[in-house]
């Protein structure tokens, strides 16, 4: 119960930081995608259950704060956990825990920004592929990777163990 409460507080802080702090520190035209960073680190350090419970909470908080429709937020963040688990399960892919985090933050960052670009275009934004790729996608991914790397290094330095994203190993029996 206490862990659940802490997760909710962390996600609320994430949403506040996304709307109150991240836009103050843009790189070219992009801002860091903190929900992706936090969900990924939550999965790696707190286990998949934390994300399974936390995602709907995050979607609610973020939907209220940014006025983006809930279904788009679910679409943007839902694939992160199963995809990370799939990569982790395929042992034939050479990987370290940090490599998994790095690859996933890039993949999830691309996916989330692509979804939000489509949302903007469906409500009237004109498509400009060049600026979207250079000013939003690439610079945004650099920010995401920088933030996730720093926080990951801090968490490992503190001594937090990396957890498995596999539900079976995490004790889940469907």
């Amino acid at each position, binding site marked *: 119960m206490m862990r659940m409460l802490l997760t909710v507080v962390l996600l*609320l802080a994430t*949403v*506040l*930081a996304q*709307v*109150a*702090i*991240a*836009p*103050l*520190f*843009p790189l070219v*035209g*992009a*801002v860091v995608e903190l929900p992706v960073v936090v969900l990924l680190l939550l999965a790696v350090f707190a286990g998949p259950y934390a994300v*399974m419970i936390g*995602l*709907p909470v995050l*979607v*609610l*908080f973020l*939907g*209220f*704060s*940014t*006025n*983006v*429709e*809930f*279904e788009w937020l*679910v*679409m943007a963040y*839902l694939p992160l*956990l*199963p995809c990370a*688990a*799939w990569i982790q*399960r395929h042992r034939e892919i050479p990987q370290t825990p940090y490599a998994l985090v790095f690859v996933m933050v890039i993949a999830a960052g691309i996916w989330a*920004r692509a979804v*939000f*670009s489509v*949302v*903007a*275009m469906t*409500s*009237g*934004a*004109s498509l*400009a592929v060049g*600026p*979207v790729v250079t*000013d*939003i*996608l690439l610079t*945004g991914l650099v920010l995401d990777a920088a933030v996730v790397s720093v926080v990951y290094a801090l968490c490992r330095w503190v001594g937090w163990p990396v957890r498995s994203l*596999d*539900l*079976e190993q995490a004790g*889940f029996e*469907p």
Partner: protein
Amino acid sequence: MLIFSRYSYWVGAMVALAVLLAVVGRAGLLDPVQDVFLRATGPLEEGTSSVFSPVASFFSDVGNVDRLQEENRRLLSENETLRNQNAALRADSLRLAELEEALGVVTADPSAERLAAGVLSRIQGPLTRELRIDRGTNHGVVEGNPVLSVQGTLIGTVTEALPSSSFVRLLTDSRSSIAAQVRGSPADGIAKGNGGALNFELVEGDVNIGDTIVTSGLGGTYPPDIPIGEVTDILGDTQDPFPTVRLQTTVRISTTRTVLVMTSFTPARFQVDE
């Protein structure tokens, strides 16, 4: 694919939740909950933002020292010119008021009511730029109200008004397009955001660097003659009939803390809907 089957229950539940929230949200049933949430988190957002704003401004200014010095020199010069013009206009205004009184003429500015609002947060996504302000329907704000800087420059439009706060779509949002014209010239076009900057798509006439672009009032979405920005660059060759024109807004939207909502102006389309 085994891993997906293990997550399939949760994925299915999330999709169902998304559908439910989409339906409930569109029906407006979550608006009161959203308002309560925003009331509760508003002070936190404002406090957090005000702590980090000076830090962000410092880093932004350090990277632009040369440009800021040049801008400062230009603004000092402009300031002197404008002070002189202002003095002349004040005299003209007094004279006009005297004449109106003598003739019994009453002029009413339909855009006179401007409500000051504080910026609670900035919402920046790919191609989108929005603000959340601390005034809503309880204070007379409605969807479609134009939003100005304290100096009177247009910065956006209210897209959703909740009881105690509202969302404002900025001019630089790529979904934003405004019927505009060159001040003092018949040239007109459309000012469009591109997710960070502002362009002017010329439809008819000529435009030069330094021209001021204002709202034209066409379409009834905005009142006429509200300043939008100044032409800073014209891309394309001289034969190009439709060059891309870059605009610079005279207000720093990224650090704006207070805005004015024109509560007395409702766009024509909203009036028809009502």
